[in-house]
């Protein structure tokens, strides 16, 4: 993938993750004393939280594919610990 495109996608993933994590602690995902709408019997706060986590795992996976550290496709990447 072209380096500039990769960086654009990487920044997009970072922005999305940041926005999602901020929203996670707002009434969008945590409405005070609100039960519904429910899904498969689960209260909103729980199912929305589970969905958010699934989206974050997928987003993290996508982010690893476009991470700027992938440039050079891992070639110079065998660091030493001492």
């Amino acid at each position, binding site marked *: 993938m072209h380096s500039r495109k990769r960086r654009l996608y990487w920044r997009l993933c970072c922005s999305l993750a940041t926005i999602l994590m901020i929203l996670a602690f707002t009434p969008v*995902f*945590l409405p005070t004393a609100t039960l519904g709408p429910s899904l498969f*019997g689960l*209260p909103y*706060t*729980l199912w929305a*939280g589970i969905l958010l986590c699934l989206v974050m795992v997928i987003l993290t996976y996508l982010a690893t594919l476009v991470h700027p550290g*992938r440039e050079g496709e891992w070639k110079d990447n065998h660091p030493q*610990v001492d």
Partner: protein
Amino acid sequence: MLQALIIVGTIYVILLVGVSLWQRRGPTDSKSYLLAGGSLGSILGLFTFAATLFSTFTLLGMPDFFRVHGVGAWTFLAVSDMALIFGVIWIGYHFRRVALREGYWGMAGFLNRRYGNRLAGGVAFFGVFVFLIPYVAIQIKGVSDFVAQAFPDLMPIWGWSVMLVAIMLLYSELGGLKAIVYNDAMQGLVLLVVIWIVGLSCLSEVGGLEAGYAQLQEQDSALLTVPGPRGLFTPQFLIGSAVAILMIPFTQPQVSIRLAIMKDDRSMYRMAVGVGTFAILVILPTAFIGLYGSLRYPELSAFEFLGQALIRDQPATLAAFVIIGLLAAAISTADSQIFALGTELRSILTIEDDERLLRITKIGIGAFALLALGFSIVSSDQLALLARTSFAGTSLLAPLIFTAIFASPGTGGRALPLITLAGILLFIASLLGWVPETVGPLRLDLLLLLSLGIAAIIIVLLGRTGGEREPAHS
């Protein structure tokens, strides 16, 4: 059940010690013993990272959190863990780049080199020592209390604690970090399987998801919303917890060392995605156990409820596996923490002789384990809240560590370590009740972290007027 426990327990201990003896056959220098050779693959990395991260408080604290405080417990841990895994690939990359170039033996030693003085490493070591020892202690105490309650006539609580620490020290001292990593993989699997079997059994007992939550709505609908019936899960509590948990890979040495010893960045990225998946899988069944507890045992104390739900309501063989799963969860976190404290100690020592260094580190590991054992006898049983205090305490080191990662060497000098030390001491004073836990509307831990963060930014900006800046990666 005792017979089943003895059989399963014996097999488990034989496996742990066997793995350690197998790993002992390799090289015995510091790098092999303390850093597992520095070449961890993604699968092994995933299990050791997950087993270190998900401790007794996941298996004991989280079901009780769901039972008493409701569904906000999901956001408290699972959502916070998602921030953590993204942080691993975002900041972990920069951390590895700088830390491995410097030669990484431990966070304290790394900070000494980056700040150019021994105060930075000393503050970091003090911070992790003060907040990790109680965390290790609650792992030991949590499991010991629980098992002693399940078998009241077999052994006193302290007897279980001593046995736990002895097993942990035996295989850690024998095989080093590599043995811990392999044993973590085994313990992580045991934890996952056991918690799912119990979770599904609890779910089936309440008639499934829909029926269970419908009953709970009738019984106590506040458990289905935030902030929960006791008002714990306020946005500020959840944000404070998320920030503290997000920092764990960099502020808790037993986790940061696992980032440093990954074979390459690609392994670390795969590991992060795997840990995210593991987090969802391991926390979800604790919600089912909590739901069961809210419906069946709303009035019991934490340990009474856990004894009922995890042991007495389960078939004997499964109950034996639950106890082993609990021991696995406690041991896999506690051994890594104790071992990391030893590694941190080694990283700030300036002795040249590798053999002598290793000997001192091993003695240090034993001493830290004994300290944690002593503390476990006097600590309280608020597992999840004590774990959170540990996360919040070590998170105060984050500005110091991030400055070391992102700013040029020498930035921060002695000023930032001193300010961080002041912040840690203030937080400890608040825990001891000497200063208030809140300042106006803000919790003190959050306020301190914000203040330290701002102080670090100002110091970095002032430092940029002079000195050479290292090239940064976006």
